[in-house]
């Protein structure tokens, strides 16, 4: 089975600082993989390289068998790579429904003229997009707040809205950046369930970053560990827990 996503020798240098050094990563279809490491290890930089927000200094990225190294952010998104953000980046002057609708693609090509003149073609496309956005929001439990402003939602709802928005891209690969940040244990347990079920329903491959070890170990099938930009370990949660290099990097993880 060819990997859905493969990064080889991924390196990113900012002037004299090497943020990511020679990292290899592979994700198969349907995998749920974690990316952990102490602060400054280069995890967010990896996300940026994968999503096309930054171009790698060297190394290659292959997505669905295609070499996408150097592709720009919106190009990667359209190919099927979506992400959520560590600091929530919702569009605060649009309501919840519009946040998701803005990301949806119209089923049929719909140009500027038909939008302005409100031609039937446009109306059909609008209905389809609205239906899709509404369905996604309902699936994530946000069906009652469609007309609300995202800033008025509780924190957990905002995080779920971010996920709904990312799913509107029909992605194959979903990157979650600290999805459990700021949640209490109950919410985190719910989130674990949600993530697993979303993977099933939407046939996603998921790569996530988080600092909560219990959360990561509890949900991920495999984990990559970074430290100072280098990959120092890779394996199942059980293997990672006892890996001496990982323990040393974190200084105090227990076996």
């Amino acid at each position: 089975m060819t990997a859905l996503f493969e990064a080889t020798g991924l390196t990113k240098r900012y002037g004299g600082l090497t943020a990511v050094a020679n990292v290899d990563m592979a994700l198969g279809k349907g995998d749920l993989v974690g990316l952990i490491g102490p602060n400054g290890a280069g995890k967010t930089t990896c996300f940026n390289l994968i999503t096309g927000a930054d171009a790698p200094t060297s190394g290659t990225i292959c997505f669905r068998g295609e070499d996408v190294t150097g592709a720009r952010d919106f190009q990667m998104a359209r190919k099927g790579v979506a992400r959520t953000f560590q600091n929530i980046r919702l569009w605060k002057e649009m309501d919840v429904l519009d946040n998701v609708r803005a990301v949806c693609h119209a089923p049929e090509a719909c140009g500027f003229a038909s939008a302005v003149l409100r031609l039937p073609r446009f109306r059909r496309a609008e209905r389809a997009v609205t239906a899709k956005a509404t369905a996604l929001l309902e699936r994530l439990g946000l069906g009652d707040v469609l007309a609300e402003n995202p800033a008025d939602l509780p924190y957990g709802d905002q995080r779920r809205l971010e996920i709904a928005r990312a799913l509107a891209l029909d992605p194959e690969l979903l990157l979650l950046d600290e999805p459990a940040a700021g949640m209490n244990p109950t919410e985190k347990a719910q989130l674990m369930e949600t993530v697993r079920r979303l993977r099933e329903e939407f046939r996603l491959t998921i790569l996530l970053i988080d600092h909560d070890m219990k959360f990561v170990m509890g949900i991920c099938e495999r984990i990559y560990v970074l430290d100072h930009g280098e990959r120092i370990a890779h394996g199942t949660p059980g293997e990672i827990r006892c890996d001496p290099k990982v323990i040393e990097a974190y200084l105090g993880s227990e076996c």
Partner: protein
Amino acid sequence: MLDYLLNGLALGAIFAFIALGYTMVYGIIKLINFAHGEFFMFGAFLGFFVLRDLGIDRLPLPQPLPILLSYLVALSAASLGAGTLAVVTERVAYRPVRRASRIAALITAVCVSLILQNLAVKVWGAAPRAYPQPREWTDVGALDGTAEANLYALTRFETTDGTVTENEVRVVAVGEPIDDAMRERLRAAGHERVYRQVQVGRGWTRGFVLLALALWAPVLWFLVKRTRMGKAMRAVSGDTDAARLMGIDINRVIAWTFFLGAFVAGVGGVAYCASYGKVEPLTGFLPGMKAFIAAVIGGIGSIPGAIVGGLVLGTAESLIPYALREGLGWEAAFAWKDAIAFALLIVILVFKPTGILGKAVREKV
């Protein structure tokens, strides 16, 4: 061509003086102070009134002291006046928007600029006024004794109480000897003595401005690098909140920055108007814009950048039209020099927005 180069450098020095104010203010509160041109204009007007009305250049002292003194006072008045206006403006108009969005702050700056311009029009009238040119009066002798006067020769009345008024100055003869016939005419008109007026040449003005820049640059460097206030300025421009937590009085530092920037611009104002011979309420707009462009070219926020940018823009404004005219035969090239400055701005913003000496800043995702 050397002439154009020197002109360009002198103009560049003037831009540099004004650009320093823009760059210092931007460095510290990230605001493009559109009204800076008006501080410059205000300084120029104060200098104008000193030069025209205080009559220091006619003090009975050995030359060239009266001229030097006159200019010294004019420059001081211009600088102090511009600096004071800047501090007041900051307190009244900019402090309330310090916490507002960038658009709000910039719009406020534009409005302050327009308000000051139009207030100046209301108070001083929109018409341009001739800037007193630096001049030297030499008493050549009594009318009876003088045999020749082949330079500018002006006579002026001395009133009974010994004061001299310019209104009564008349050009008698340029390059002509004062013969008996003329002597008769002059005596009949009431003239008694002959004076020679020598205008301080362009070369002197240019030299003065460049010299002033050369003197001020190390002074500013010293102020910013070695004094406590200078260090405080750099701290605030680096990280305002941290500076505040360290006990630095932000308001004082910002006020000082505005004062210093406008102080230096005042010098530029007098130099500019003396070079071009006139001053008007709208004087500040175009040089202000260009000085701002100079600051961007050199790297906004960087003091050496302002100086470099100013010299670059001044030289470009002089040499590029010259090259276009001589090289491509484009007669009207000089009329477009203002457009050249703006075009340079767009080019720099597109290719190297941080300017020649600036540093790139990255956004964290």
